[in-house]
């Protein structure tokens, strides 16, 4: 009596044994690989993601700036480009002379009303999608020249600005911070809704 209480009943063992035998009988065929239709090359290189994620990743990791450096902030941009701060870490070491190759405008400098139509034209020539970083006090608001008769009080009077980087001039670290903020902004972009 005591022994039967400690061990499981023989009936239970028989039920388990039948289930195992049935399982063995039902699994004698090899289950085919559902990805067998892929050839070997593709199998090793495939990655599943959403369209938004991959598009935004591609866009933000290789932004090409267009030449738009009307004043002294350009030197901070040049420093950012050069080896010490090394903008190529973000895939943007190439500064395009043609706006048709570029998708980012870093407006490094004071803009006069006489020059403004040309900047607007360059912006219009850039292919979509495109972004603008207003670099420095002059680009943000006109800076110390704001009340001047000849200076545009902020690039946002003529083109839409995505990120504002204050400073006179901003240090390369500040510009890189602005670029990182733009990266975040691009990551939130959706192909369907268009916005965030």
């Amino acid at each position, binding site marked *: 009596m005591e022994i039967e209480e400690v061990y499981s009943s023989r009936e239970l063992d028989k039920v388990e044994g039948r289930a195992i035998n049935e399982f063995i009988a039902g699994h004698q065929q090899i289950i085919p690989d559902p990805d067998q239709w892929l050839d070997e090359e593709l199998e090793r290189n495939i990655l599943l993601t959403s369209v938004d994620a991959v598009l935004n990743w591609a866009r933000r990791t290789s932004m090409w700036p267009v030449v738009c450096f009307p004043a002294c902030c350009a030197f901070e941009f040049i420093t950012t480009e050069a080896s010490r701060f090394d903008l190529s870490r973000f895939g943007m070491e190439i500064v395009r002379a043609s706006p048709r190759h570029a998708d980012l405008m870093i407006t490094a400098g004071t803009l006069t*009303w*006489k020059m403004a139509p040309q900047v607007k034209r360059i912006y219009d020539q850039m292919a979509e999608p495109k972004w603008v970083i207003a670099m420095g006090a002059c680009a943000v608001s006109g800076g110390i020249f704001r009340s001047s*008769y*000849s200076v545009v009080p902020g690039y946002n009077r003529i083109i839409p600005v995505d990120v504002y980087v204050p400073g006179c001039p901003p240090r390369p670290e500040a510009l890189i911070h602005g670029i990182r903020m733009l990266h975040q902004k691009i990551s939130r972009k959706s192909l369907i809704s268009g916005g965030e």
Partner: protein
Amino acid sequence: MTLALSGKDIAKQIEEQFPGCVAESAADSLLVKAESLSEIAAYLKNTPGLDFDYLTAVSGVDYIDFFEVVYHLTSIEHNHSLVLKARCYNRDNPVLPSVVGLWRTADFQEREIYDLLGISFEGHPNLKRIALWEGFEGHPLRKDFL
């Protein structure tokens, strides 16, 4: 170093040639009457011993009562220099004779003064705005420009 000639010495020399044309002379500059500016400038350029063959700069100044145009002349041959000045008192329509015929340097600089101070240079071959755009209202370097 370039020797800065005294305006007083040059004034004496000019007074002999053109009596009554010097308005004021000092150690550092020579102020001449606007109507005789062309003749005196040509004299300074072409007279042997003076030979001011190079115009370093032209600047305009607004003193509210009058406009003054300052010519910095240099002689490369003799390595000396002189500051020549002329004034115009008409604020509504200030006019001075152009010196582009003597020194081509004056071309852009007179255009800049025309642009920013509104002084017309009579005889300038291409007197139009140089920094600001056509249609800009007023002359921004005037003291009463707002």
